[in-house]
């Protein structure tokens, strides 16, 4: 059906392996395929920054088919930031280039002794010396590589690279592609750095075979119509993801001051509409084939130099360097975003780390002599920007903070663990579970650690508007769906959506364009998948494939020793907020316990341990995984 490219950096060898149709139909691509490869090929307990770890970069079976949202690729490995499974996604122009260069996925293994970059060009691949790029920013590296191969047209060539942060193995280092797109979360850039793989570049225009071109065109046309109906699409175009910033504050759910508050008086100054009205926004950009144009182009000469090529801030970045640090200076947020892009760092983790450091400074746990004289006061934009650079260079206090809040808090002691906002080692994103119960459940159960993208948030499910009987979401059977409800209805919605979004991550499509926030229906995606492959997959099979990937990543974490004990929330997120519309309403341990029990039950997992069972793995057609867990005595009796 396609090909895998295996690159062994220790041996300097490159081989091509056929990808069997039955593997693709079962595991699809992206998340599912990567989980299959990494479960089979990684030994539990390995050092994520050692040569034993492998990086899987993947497209999906619909790759290079032009429709809105079909521009993502995945990067998975054991995470150096979290406690086990790591995954990350990025947009831009790389995903179709992976397919058009002749492959479905790259498996990167071993480690090189010297810096190298991987060049993939129409079914051929080679490793090239990257010494001259080592120490360079992602922008310098990408531009240098494009110059080296004589191609600067992003429609022809796409380059992904790490910056100084990845080289220095900052645990939340990102991989940047097309200058402004980030596979940011889980520290995939640090894994690249540990292998001395500075970059990869894909060039090609190979035609991807399609089973039924006429049917495919019909479904793609349907996408064009549906995406315009998505309620989130026009605001996304106009104001970007940051357009929600003031709305979240107004509803008491904007993470503020390291999750101490839910409202921020400066929200209007940093929100997406202000980015537009102030003139900071100079253009809108898009990913390959996408009509939504949610990407921001910002440009400025003062108070900070901002380059239009390096990207504008999205919502997570706006909140992380804004309300989270009590910073209402929009320009400094834009600068922090661009610094992170150039150093190659996840903006969510970096912002949470900065907020953590500010609270530690306020409490006297971090002192001025430890910060190199830097006054880490709340809302100090200069301190934020300096700290970002110190982290990117692992310099001074930046070396400790480059470890992430979980490890930094352990080293600092003195109660710092209490305000280290992470789940499974990964920093908590910018959504407030005390005003969205299902987001709390998501943070707790996500195998990659705290994640806001496992399923659509609670707001969409209060009315009947977005319920879909064909997906198992029947309004009359699922009462009590308000933001603060946490009973079986809400958990059932979470489970169904988790399977659907897991499938999106295996198809590697952008959920912004997909139901419910985007308009493209899953039945349309399924139609495209079948037309492209010649399969006759049913909606049940489609959802089962999503659920299979969830089982696999849970099994991966089970081998790493993770259980229900790690499906938790930071204590602060369980205490009531002092302000806003949700003041005084805690996310109590009883609520979390109840939600976890219901979630495990729906998945057929063991309630005591949170682990998959032989029955749940059998239902997912993963008997070989059950056998492996059985041999390791990890199957609940």
């Amino acid at each position, binding site marked *: 059906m396609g090909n895998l490219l295996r690159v062994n950096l220790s041996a300097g060898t490159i081989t091509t392996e056929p990808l069997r149709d039955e593997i693709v139909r079962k595991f699809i691509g992206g998340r599912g395929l990567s989980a299959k490869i990494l479960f089979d090929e990684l030994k539990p307990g390995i050092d994520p920054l050692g040569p034993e770890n492998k990086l899987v970069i993947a497209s999906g079976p619909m790759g290079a088919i032009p429709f809105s949202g079909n521009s993502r690729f995945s990067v998975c490995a054991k995470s150096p930031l979290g406690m086990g499974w790591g995954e990350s996604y990025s947009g831009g122009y790389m995903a179709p280039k992976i397919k058009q260069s002749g492959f479905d996925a790259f498996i990167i293994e071993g480690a090189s002794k010297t810096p190298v970059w991987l060049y993939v060009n129409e079914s051929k691949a080679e490793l090239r010396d990257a010494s001259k790029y080592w120490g360079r920013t992602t922008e310098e590296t990408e531009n240098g590589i494009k110059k080296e191969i004589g191609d600067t047209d992003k429609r022809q060539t796409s380059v992904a690279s790490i910056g100084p942060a990845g080289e220095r193995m900052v645990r939340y280092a990102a991989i940047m592609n097309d200058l402004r797109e980030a596979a940011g979360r889980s520290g995939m850039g640090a894994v690249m750095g540990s292998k001395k793989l500075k970059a990869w570049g894909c060039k090609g225009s190979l035609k991807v075979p399609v089973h039924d071109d006429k049917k495919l065109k019909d479904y793609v046309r349907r996408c064009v119509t549906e995406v315009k109906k998505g*309620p*989130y699409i*026009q*605001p996304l175009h*106009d104001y970007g*993801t940051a*357009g*929600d910033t*003031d*709305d*979240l504050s*107004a*509803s*008491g*759910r904007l993470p503020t001051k390291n999750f101490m508050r839910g*409202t921020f008086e400066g929200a209007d100054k940093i929100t997406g*509409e202000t980015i537009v009205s102030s003139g900071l926004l100079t253009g809108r950009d898009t990913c390959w084939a996408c009509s939504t144009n949610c990407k921001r182009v910002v440009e400025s000469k003062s108070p900070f130099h901002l380059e239009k090529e390096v990207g504008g801030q*999205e*919502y*997570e970045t706006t909140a992380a360097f804004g309300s989270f640090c009590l910073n209402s200076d929009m320009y400094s947020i834009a600068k922090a975003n661009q610094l992170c892009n150039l150093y190659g760092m996840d903006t969510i983790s970096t912002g949470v780390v900065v907020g953590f450091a500010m609270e530690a400074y306020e409490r006297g746990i971090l002192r001025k002599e430890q910060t190199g004289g830097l006054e880490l006061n709340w809302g100090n934009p200069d301190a934020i920007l300096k700290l970002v650079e110190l982290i990117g260079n692992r310099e001074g206090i930046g070396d400790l903070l480059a470890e992430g809040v979980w490890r930094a808090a352990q080293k600092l002691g003195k109660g710092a663990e209490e305000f280290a906002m992470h789940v499974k080692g990964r920093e908590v994103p910018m*959504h407030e579970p005390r005003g969205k119960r299902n*987001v709390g459940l998501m943070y707790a159960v996500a195998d990659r650690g705290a994640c*806001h*993208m496992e399923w*659509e*948030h609670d*707001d*969409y499910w*209060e*009315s*009947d*508007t*977005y319920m879909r009987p064909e997906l198992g979401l029947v309004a009359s059977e699922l009462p009590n769906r308000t*933001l603060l409800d946490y009973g079986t209805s809400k958990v059932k919605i979470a489970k169904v959506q988790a399977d659907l979004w897991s499938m999106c991550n295996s198809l590697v499509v952008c959920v*912004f364009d997909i139901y419910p*926030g985007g308009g493209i229906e899953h039945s349309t995606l399924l139609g495209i998948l079948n037309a492209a492959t010649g399969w006759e997959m049913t909606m049940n099979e489609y959802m089962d494939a999503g659920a299979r990937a969830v089982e696999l990543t849970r099994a991966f974490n089970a081998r790493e020793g993770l259980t229900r004990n790690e499906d938790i929330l930071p204590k602060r997120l369980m205490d009531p907020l002092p302000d*806003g*519309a949700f003041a005084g309403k805690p996310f109590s341990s009883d609520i979390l316990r109840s939600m976890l029990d219901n979630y495990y039950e729906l998945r057929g997992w063991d309630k005591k341990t949170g682990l998959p069972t032989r029955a749940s793995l059998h239902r997912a057609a993963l008997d070989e995984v059950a056998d492996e867990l059985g041999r390791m005595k990890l199957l609940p009796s």
Partner: protein
Amino acid sequence: MSTVKVVLVYLGQAREAAGTKEEETALQAPAKIEQAVSQAMAAHPKLSELRATIKLLINGQWASQNADLKDGDRVTLLPPVGGG
């Protein structure tokens, strides 16, 4: 006949539909929040498409459909806010 003056605040898609971020409106006393919403829908018909999914706040606190309004209240119309 006395009136109650309130400020309608439109967020997210509601702001798009109304074409403004906020506006003052006068309601016949005694005023209920449902009156304010109906008046908003009449003034901005596109808002009606969002009616089923909109949540309401009065002065930053969640409000029921039949909540009372008083002079100076700020009524926020909040459509779904997702992840991202």
